[in-house]
């Protein structure tokens, strides 16, 4: 099943905002084709194909705005209008399924005039100048205006802003002056994410997109995933941008500025520089970051590996308590906790399941804590002079680093969360041509990360990494003996929810790294490990509801959840646009990097072994680990004051 069809099945959007399914179900299901004539050319398409799809198939360009490949069909902007023979009114091609032979004209005088009028009308209500906008040159309204030769404001243009900009959220900034009411954000929030923070209110000209009672975004149940940002055609939604502060830190000679970079930005940042999606820029980016002035460039994958060890150990402890000590208070399945959007989703909508959430911090936050303690001590730098910046594909990471409890180093563990887009801007601002940069490696002592850390960027990646380690630690054999090239294919892919069972036939000796946790593995012999993966909180919701109902997911031991469709590579901080195709290409880049890594399993990372030898000497889940690398959560609930 494709990603899209999964989302369609769960649509909660009102039917006025939903794809027009033809009566016999999904397209092609009835079988048969139907003939269409587009601008005089004939072709056959499967019954139920929309006019837009047919036109694209034939290479005829139809402008769209409210249409987005990830979302259900709204048919509200009316940009994609075409003339259908025999019909008085123009038809929105995105919302018109072809069920009988029709003849279409795509650029008659009426059509051109209507499209131009629609752009003119949007501009009449769209406050702001293109050159003073974060989406300059990456704005769909601007492109349409260019495409249709708009050179004056036919019906006028606002001179003053109408709405105050909402900067209350750490992650998402809303500027309704630039909103064109395509409602993609509404459909994203309701359908993809099942959060439902955004909805249209009022009618007619007064219609705006609003939160509950028009409260500031920072005060409602927004999970900060930023998926709405990625789908906003204009600059109405953007991430809360800390680049000024980051530049100020770089420019301050007393500050030691460190950047850690997550796996997904390197697979996406090329897009900011006109490269094909999926062009890896890992090593060019390292050079560019140094040239920007960062003192050290570290790979977040180091703490991804650390997360695997800590979270994996936590899982083993839970399993031991549940299975051997028969402790019924142990919460299983254990949920991953590295996606801050997902964590906040759970805190709001399923607070009663917080005990299931791994207490391990996300790799970003572990890194912050390690830098301001272990690294600071090692290099004799006063942590108060260290500024840690996290390059993330994510807008929720901005909220996460500002959580008040994230100060276990004695300082704010991570000072700033920077998105891929924001770093792209910094690199351009520094006059650096990223693709032309020479390659350079990450800095020591955390330099050599593993392929396991890299694949954290794709949905299923955390699970695959965890399994690589758990299999080797418990079974005592090589993962390669069970899975070709250590690629655990069953957990990969873009299906919204995946479920995998692994029978543990044999067990090995307990390796020293976890020997303080369990006496032996005998209790796991013959057991079947049940795991699952879900991405997009709408899918997460399905799994959680199943668990509550005592369904098959309630018998799982470990479940990976990612707030964003596709995992981090589709995060709310990644380059715009996003489509299933673009996400698939980024995933290819990520799995290619994993495949090329010398070390591909977290527990074999020498830097990991070193930190447990030198610093976290009580081992995984030990006292110091608990202080620095684990956290607690807040039951927020749905009801806001």
């Amino acid at each position, binding site marked *: 099943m494709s990603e899209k069809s999964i989302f369609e099945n769960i649509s909660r959007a*009102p*039917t*006025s*905002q939903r794809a*027009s*399914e*033809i*009566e016999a179900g999904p397209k092609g299901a009835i079988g048969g084709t139907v003939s269409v004539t587009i601008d005089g050319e004939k072709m056959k398409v499967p019954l139920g194909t929309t006019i837009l799809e047919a036109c694209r198939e034939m290479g005829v360009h139809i402008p769209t705005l409210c249409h987005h490949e990830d979302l259900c*069909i709204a*048919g*509200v*902007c*009316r*940009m994609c*209008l075409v003339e259908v023979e025999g019909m*008085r*009114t*123009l038809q*929105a091609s995105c*919302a*018109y*399924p072809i*069920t009988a032979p029709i003849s279409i004209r795509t650029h008659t005088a*009426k059509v051109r*005039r*209507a499209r131009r*009028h*629609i752009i003119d*009308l*949007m501009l*009449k*209500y769209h406050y702001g100048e293109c050159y003073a906008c974060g989406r300059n040159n990456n704005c769909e309204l601007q492109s349409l205006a260019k495409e249709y030769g708009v050179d004056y404001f*036919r*019906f006028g243009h606002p001179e003053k802003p109408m709405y105050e900009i909402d900067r209350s959220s750490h992650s998402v900034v809303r500027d309704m002056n630039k909103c*064109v*009411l395509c409602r993609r954000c509404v459909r994203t929030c309701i359908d993809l994410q099942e959060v439902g923070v955004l909805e*249209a209110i*009022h*009618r*007619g*000209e*007064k*219609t705006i997109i609003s939160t509950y009672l028009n409260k500031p975004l920072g005060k409602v149940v927004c999970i900060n995933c930023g998926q709405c940002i990625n789908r906003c055609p204009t600059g109405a939604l953007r991430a809360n941008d800390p680049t000024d502060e980051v530049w100020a830190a770089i420019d301050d000679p007393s500050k030691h500025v460190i950047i850690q970079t997550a796996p997904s930005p390197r697979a996406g940042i090329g897009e900011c520089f006109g490269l094909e999606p999926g062009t890896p820029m890992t090593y060019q980016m390292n050079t560019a970051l140094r040239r920007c002035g960062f003192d050290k460039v570290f790979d977040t994958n180091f703490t991804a590996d650390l997360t695997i060890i800590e979270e994996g150990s936590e899982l083993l402890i839970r399993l031991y308590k549940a299975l051997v000590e028969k402790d019924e208070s142990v919460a299983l399945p254990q949920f991953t906790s590295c996606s801050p959007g997902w964590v906040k989703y759970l805190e709001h909508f399923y607070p009663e399941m917080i005990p299931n959430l791994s207490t391990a911090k996300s790799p970003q936050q572990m890194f912050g804590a390690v830098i301001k303690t272990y690294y600071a001590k090692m290099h004799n730098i006063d942590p108060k002079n260290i500024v840690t910046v996290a390059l993330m594909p994510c807008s929720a990471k901005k909220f996460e680093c500002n959580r008040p409890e994230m100060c276990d180093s004695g300082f704010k563990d991570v000072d700033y969360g920077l998105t891929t887009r924001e770093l792209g801007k910094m690199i351009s601002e520094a006059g650096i041509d990223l693709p032309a940069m020479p390659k350079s490696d990450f800095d020591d002592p955390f330099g050599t990360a593993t392929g396991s850390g890299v694949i954290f960027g794709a949905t299923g990646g955390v699970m695959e990494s965890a399994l690589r380690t758990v299999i080797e630690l418990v079974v005592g054999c090589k993962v390669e003996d069970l899975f070709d090239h250590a690629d655990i294919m069953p957990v990969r892919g873009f299906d919204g929810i995946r479920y995998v069972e692994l029978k543990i036939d044999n067990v090995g000796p307990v390796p020293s790294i976890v020997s303080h946790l369990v006496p032996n593995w005998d209790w796991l012999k013959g057991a079947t490990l049940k795991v699952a993966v879900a991405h997009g909180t709408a899918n997460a919701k399905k799994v959680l509801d199943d668990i509550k109902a005592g369904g098959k997911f309630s018998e799982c031991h470990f479940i990976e959840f990612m707030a964003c469709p596709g995992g981090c590579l589709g995060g709310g901080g990644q380059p715009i646009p996003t489509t299933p195709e673009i996400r698939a290409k980024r995933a290819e880049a990520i799995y290619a990097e994993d495949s090329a890594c010398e070390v591909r399993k977290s527990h074999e990372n020498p830097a990991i072994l070193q930190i447990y030898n030198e610093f976290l000497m009580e081992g995984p889940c030990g006292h110091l680990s608990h202080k620095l690398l684990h956290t607690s959560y807040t039951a927020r609930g749905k009801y806001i004051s």
Partner: protein
Amino acid sequence: MITSTCRNLTFETIEPWAGLKRAMELGQAGIIREVTDSGIKGRGGAGFPAGVKWNLCAAAKDPLKYIICNADEGEPGTFKDRVILTDFADLVFEGMIIAAMAIKATEGILYLRGEYTYLREGLEAQLLALRVNKKLGENACGVKGFDFNIKIRMGSGAYVCGEETALIESLEGHRGEPRNRPPYPVNTGFNGHSTAVNNVESLAWISCILSKGSKWFSQHGTEKSTGLKLFSVSGDCDKPGVYELPLGITVAELLVEVGGSNAKAVQIGGASGRCVPAIEFDRKIAYEDIPTGGSVIVFGPGRDMLDVAQNFLEFMVEESCGQCTPCRYGNPTLLEGVQMLREGRCSAGYLKELVSLGETIQIASKCGLGQSSANAFLSIVKHFKEEIMGRAIGDA
């Protein structure tokens, strides 16, 4: 040739439940044939042939089907559905039961305009009586296996909720916003099920058609617009009120009837209708010429046509659901133009732009509201250009 005037309606002469009795004799196919033969088109404004609609519903393979009576009567200047619901509600319920037999509906819903809440108690009492008399409920009308009930749901004052798909959205608890079509409600309606939406008057006439025969009905009116129709007449005339007249009547004939012969113009079809100037009073009120849901507003010689245009546009700006661009932003732009005209600031060139915009709104909007929202403005600009352009600067 004019059959009757205000308060002298065919509905008064119909023997109660005779239509239903005949419907039971005819059976499903027979009912649909009778309705189709009568040629009756929807009395709610859109004028879709009722027989065709029922046929599509009957053909839909769906275990749950609905018949919805659209009593959201919100078109400015109409009040005929209110009269029917006040005095002849049983004819409407009878029509709904007949519809249910024809399409095999399991449930009927009367969607009542919020402003008509005062009618609800009486209507509920009538429905209760029908349940007691076993006309509704399990094995309704004594037909084994025919389980059919009618409930009342209230609208809350949005004109757009009279549009059938917005009405359904509102029934489902969403914002009242029209849906994309296709699919049509006959296939995918209330809660995704096959649904026939019919106007109050349409259903009342169907009871009459079943009782008096399709021939009786189709002898009135024109070939393409058969039958009698209720008109809600208001404005500058001597005898405003509800009139029953045959379709195909000319505007001039209607004006004689209502005492408005000196009119300067007549708005036919309410805010979404057209403004007909005196020189066109020989035109017919019929689906093939000037269609209407029944609203007739007469403008006497003293009326300022710019006021009229402004009034109707203000209504549309207020009532647009705001979903699609042309209607949401186009109508306020036209209204702004009216203000410019008033102040003598609108050049002939800009007026042309506005007319062109109005034409776009007509063909580019998502639903019937937007598609007809510019009608009044466009017809007034067309026929009263001199009057509206003649304002001196500062003449506001």
